[in-house]
């Protein structure tokens, strides 16, 4: 079978998912495959969409485990955090016990990634518009890190993230570092806009660590599934940990 080394389950919040799958297969060594279920987040971030997505995630996790996935990721930092960050380890542990498969959550992947990178002060960039800046700052604080600044690209709906130009990730990271020079980490938030290609350049040119949501999810999933070799091209996280 194609996934002879590892098969990674991912519950993907956007009802139409594009960039995550593309970047997964850029990062994945031969023999590693993705099992995907798309969830219920459509045009708006709503509690109803988060609740529906969480429920569909749980069903998908059980199905993925039955299909032989080595690890299942409950995707979506907003979906995860809607359950309470303090509850996530328990949710993952209970589901893992029930299904007999490892379970991780996007939020916990990102938290662990920043811990590994030795992060202290985080500047975040996202694509959902400035009205979501405070939500992103709060999410960072909930994960236990100091948010020194947040900025956003403008005018992109979640389901249109695939239309964000590839240069945007580097450009906004550069702007962030200029605006918040004390930042030791740039967080490119959301696993669904094009960022993976820019990680190495941002780290090299701006002298920071980079944690992007997609990278952290894939990193934690690979390591949980026993794919432990360094992977080049996607930042310190994959090279060093």
């Amino acid at each position, binding site marked *: *079978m194609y996934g002879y080394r590892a098969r990674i389950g991912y519950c993907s919040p956007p009802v*139409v998912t594009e960039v995550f*799958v593309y970047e997964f297969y850029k990062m994945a060594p031969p023999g590693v495959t993705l099992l995907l279920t798309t969830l219920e987040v459509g045009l708006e971030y709503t509690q109803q969409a988060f609740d529906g997505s969480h429920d569909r995630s749980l069903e998908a996790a059980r199905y993925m485990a039955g299909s032989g996935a080595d690890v299942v990721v409950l995707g979506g930092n907003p979906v995860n955090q809607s359950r309470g960050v303090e509850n996530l380890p328990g949710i993952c542990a209970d589901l893992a016990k029930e299904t007999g498969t490892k379970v991780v959550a996007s939020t916990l992947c990102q938290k662990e990634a920043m811990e590994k990178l030795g992060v202290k002060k985080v500047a975040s960039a996202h694509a959902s518009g400035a009205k979501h800046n405070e939500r992103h700052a709060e999410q960072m604080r909930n994960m236990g890190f100091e948010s020194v600044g947040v900025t956003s690209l403008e005018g992109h709906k979640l*389901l249109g993230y*695939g239309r964000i*130009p590839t*240069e945007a990730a580097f450009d906004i990271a550069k702007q962030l570092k200029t605006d918040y020079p004390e930042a030791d980490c740039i967080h490119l938030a959301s696993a669904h806009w094009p960022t993976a290609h820019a990680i190495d350049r941002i780290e090299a040119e701006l002298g920071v660590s980079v944690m992007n949501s997609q990278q952290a999810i894939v990193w934690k999933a690979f390591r949980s599934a026993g794919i432990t070799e360094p992977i080049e091209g996607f930042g310190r996280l994959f090279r060093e940990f």
Partner: protein
Amino acid sequence: MPLLGHRARIGYCSPPFVTETFCTEFYMMAPEGVTLLITTLEIRTRTKEEVAASHQRSLLAAKYMADAGADVVVLGGNPINQSLGMENIACVTDDLAREIGTKVITSTAAQREALETLGAKKVAQVYCYEDAENERHLNSMRNMGFEPAGVLSAGSDFMNIGRVDGKLALELSRKVKAENPQADTIHIGSAHWATAHAIDQIEKELGVSVMTSQQAIMWKALRTAGVTEPIAGFGRLLIEF
């Protein structure tokens, strides 16, 4: 500034609730600059209710995909498509394309056109599910207007099609051709088990044309989106047409 999908962005409504192999094979075949927008549907075991729910979710997903800028949307799932009635499929896609302003095709129409393009007359079939599905596959081929010439199954339940041994596509093809030497084409049915890697070898070794569901969908979607160059490694269809 380019997009990841700067050449073409292909929407695919994917029947399996948890989808694995289609994405893997998509990125095996896709030229640089071509991306996949995917929504996973409702098929867990392929009940009538799941088929109906999948069609409904497809219609919603197609609208989201069009809004996200997809160049073409594929309504996936030959059984889902054929449940609408063969005679109605063209009307459904025409109406939907008019409504959402994007090209729409179906898995069934893509496969029928692929068989026509390859000049198929007598079609032997192999597929991944239990052999209780043999008659359905024979009928499906007749519905598409081709003469079936034998059918063999790999014997997997739906949940485990991602775990089907990668050797089976070739081995079953050898067997079905030996049992049905009149077959000029082998149809490897279902877009969700490991088949793409075997197409060239089957064609060369057995002297037949090969049409796999995934290959036909990919071919029709790429050509519809204007990606017209030959793509090597996946059979005559993507090389010659």
